[in-house]
């Protein structure tokens, strides 16, 4: 049976059924899972801080690893969350080499002009969407808040994954949320929860 994006029948199946079919050797089922969750994975990695091309490569790798380890999926949560966890770990493994930059607890490099209301940042800046707003955060804040809200990881899980204290994770997330609210919130009247267009 060949791999192909055969959309007949498969599009009507749930993730759970598709995973079961893929495990049984129906490759079209996994192709449908890729089609269904590929974009989510790419977005998740970009929001964590990966460059577009890196995010796409890592999403590809994560999907292939997921295929190899499909038998380890326990159906104890959404399939997307499982995929995101795989992708997150792969990305973290990559950025760990640059830990001093990305996961540093020393914020001095970002203090000047980093907060949305600081003079160093254009005072009128308001994000047009979440991705733009995330781009204004410090890397570690961005990563923590994305892992929490997009990756569905608990604060403790994030602390374990990033190997930083729990309290630090909490403060990063708190600070990130405060910044996002400033960037996305009160001053804008045209922020709509519409479909975001970030196609490459």
């Amino acid at each position: 049976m060949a791999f192909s994006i055969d959309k007949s029948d498969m599009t009507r199946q749930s993730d759970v059924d598709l995973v079961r079919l893929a495990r049984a050797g129906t490759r079209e089922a996994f192709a449908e899972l890729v089609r269904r969750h590929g974009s989510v994975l790419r977005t998740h990695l970009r929001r964590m801080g990966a460059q577009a091309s890196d995010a796409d490569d890592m999403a590809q790798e994560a999907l292939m690893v997921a295929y190899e380890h499909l038998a380890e999926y326990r159906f104890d949560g959404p399939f997307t969350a499982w995929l995101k966890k795989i992708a997150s770990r792969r990305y973290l493994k990559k950025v760990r080499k640059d830990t001093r930059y990305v996961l540093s607890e020393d914020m001095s490099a970002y203090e000047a002009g980093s907060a949305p209301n600081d003079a160093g940042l254009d005072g009128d800046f308001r994000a047009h969407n979440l991705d733009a707003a995330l781009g204004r955060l410090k890397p570690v804040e961005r990563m923590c808040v994305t892992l929490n809200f997009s990756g569905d990881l608990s604060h403790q899980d994030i602390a374990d994954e990033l190997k930083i204290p729990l309290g630090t994770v909490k403060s990063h997330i708190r600070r990130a949320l405060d910044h996002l609210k400033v960037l996305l919130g009160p001053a804008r009247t045209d922020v709509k929860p519409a479909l975001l267009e970030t196609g490459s």
Partner: protein
Amino acid sequence: MKPEKTNDQEFTDRDIGDMFAIPVHYDDADVFAVRVTRKLQMRNWLRQWLVVLAGFIGGVYALAQFVRVPDWKLDGEMLSRATADTDQTLRAGAEFFGGAGRDVMRMADSGGYLSFMQTPAFFALSFVLCVMILGLYYAYSQEEAL
């Protein structure tokens, strides 16, 4: 549909969470999916053929232990015949492999490989190869770990 925010309403943590959940559309989503599935297909294909190739080589080797083709010899005369009327480069290559083949056949005929396989050097070589394979397997498993 969630109501739009007005100036006097503040974003809550939940609103931020909802924004994370908004689906993002990529123009090349289908291309991406096809690329992933093609890579998977290629990887599966390579793996299957590697197994087939290993099985074939192992089978030929095992068969060679029991069967001897009558009058089959990898010698210079046969190769010279085969390379008649061909260019010099091919002739040189054939002579090189002919020489190597003769050495191997000589060793096989004399049973010299048996004594070589009992030397400490052969044991050390096998041990190093095993350790290398185990090391590569471990590195690969770490790389592929969830």
